[in-house]
């Protein structure tokens, strides 16, 4: 029996407060979340209706110039430069007067992610834990996304499509684990879009994927799709071949390689394809693959709901396609959160960490706070669900 009230809130309060620190990639986020202590949490699987109140959600993104990706060292430096300021702002915005007394638990991202940025954040997390004498909890980044998504959308048991710069997974819950039903066999979807954006030398602000989405919207030849490899393998998918191919098309386009029959009319030399067309075709192809593997997982576990999380999840076209698929599957529903929660943030780490904490799971030895680049979603024992 799940009892989310296993650990009482601090100082006989009727609510819990958690702060979450996230910095596994190029976003540094700190958020504060509050859970009321409810009788309905005493027993039963109610972890998706915590009635969480978001007291603050501060984020700063390390943005690189067009054509450049973010490197671990530089990203770590960005996080170090900002982490105390962001924590301070999050506390101020949450109107916490004394973090020592107010905060039940400090949650940080244990992994997966880039090593150096993760490390730069955990240093701050350990320091405030010791300064304030507040316990620490290490959170799996993917589980953070899932729990935040469930709380925001109230989706009880959805199939989760997790799409970000580092991950592409289809996940469903079973027997206390978030199990991976399908995933990328090579690069992640966000990485694929980021790298294509670099080839196109388009801006990385606010994010490369967002700018590809805007270009795709401007495509004027939507009925003439550029055929790309479609590489779904069971419930897994592969994207590196698609990226290599569309990259080569883009390069030919920029070099005006008139020999390319797909891009230039062989008689008149006229251009047949624009950058917008490439973006549109890439999105249509990649997203169709994502929706397909999600549908397979839904059929497999007999689910009718989908939750999209991760940075790429804020793409409106992906949400549209997923919604269409769900409608066609006997009135399924798709849940997506907006970019405040899709994109990496501190609140999600606080949300998942607080659930863990309320079940009685805290770190007792600082040795257990070592961050890790590899940390599979299904390694986490999900004690807060039936």
């Amino acid at each position, binding site marked *: 029996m799940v009892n989310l009230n296993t650990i009482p809130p601090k100082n006989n309060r009727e609510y819990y407060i958690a702060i979450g620190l996230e910095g596994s990639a190029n976003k540094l986020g700190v958020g504060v979340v509050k859970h009321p202590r409810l009788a309905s949490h005493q027993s039963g699987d109610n972890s998706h209706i915590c009635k969480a109140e978001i007291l603050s959600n501060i984020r700063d993104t390390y943005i690189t110039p067009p054509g450049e990706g973010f490197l671990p060292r530089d990203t770590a430096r960005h996080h170090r430069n900002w982490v*105390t300021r962001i924590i301070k702002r999050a506390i101020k915005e949450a109107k916490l007067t004394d973090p020592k007394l107010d905060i039940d638990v400090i949650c940080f991202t244990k992994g997966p992610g880039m090593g150096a940025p993760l*490390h*730069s954040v955990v*240093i701050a997390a350990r*320091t405030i834990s010791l300064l304030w004498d507040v316990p620490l909890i290490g959170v799996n980044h993917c589980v953070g996304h899932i729990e935040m998504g469930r709380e925001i959308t109230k989706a009880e048991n959805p199939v989760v499509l997790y799409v970000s710069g580092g991950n592409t997974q289809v996940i469903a819950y079973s027997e206390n684990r978030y199990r991976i039903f399908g995933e990328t066999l090579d690069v992640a979807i966000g990485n694929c879009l980021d790298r294509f954006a670099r080839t196109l030398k388009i801006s990385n602000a606010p994010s490369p994927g967002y700018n590809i989405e805007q270009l795709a919207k401007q495509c004027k030849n939507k009925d003439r799709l550029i055929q790309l490899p479609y590489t779904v393998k069971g419930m897994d998918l592969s994207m590196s071949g698609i990226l290599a191919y569309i990259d080569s098309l883009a390069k030919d386009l920029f070099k005006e390689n008139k020999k390319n029959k797909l891009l230039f009319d062989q008689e008149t030399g006229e251009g047949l394809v624009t950058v917008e067309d490439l973006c549109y075709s890439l999105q249509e192809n990649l997203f169709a693959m994502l929706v397909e593997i999600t549908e397979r997982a839904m059929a497999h576990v007999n689910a009718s709901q989908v939750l999209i999380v991760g940075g790429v999840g804020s793409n409106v076209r992906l949400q549209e396609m997923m919604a269409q698929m769900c409608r066609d599957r006997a009135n399924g529903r798709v849940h997506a959160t907006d970019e405040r929660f899709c994109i990496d943030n501190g609140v999600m780490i606080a949300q998942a960490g607080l659930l863990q904490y309320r079940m009685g799971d805290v770190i007792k030895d600082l040795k257990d706070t070592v961050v890790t680049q590899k940390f599979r979603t299904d390694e986490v024992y999900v004690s807060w669900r039936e």
Partner: protein
Amino acid sequence: MNLDHTLKLEIPFEDAKQANIAVDVLKPDPILRPQDFQVSYKARDNVFVAEFESIDDRVLRVGVSNVIDSLKTIIETMDELS
């Protein structure tokens, strides 16, 4: 190879508690190549002491610089969030 390139770093903190926190924060992380680089942390009253040993100057420089980066975060956090 001998770890004969060494450096000792002493940083005074405001009090012994702060120096001890710095030690506790830095201690858990494992050294990536212990055969090339070693470090030990301790607190002597309010002084934080780190002793580095390494196979060459370059590895020593990188290792020390990483620890100093972390120390800067620790100190800034103490200043801003105590």
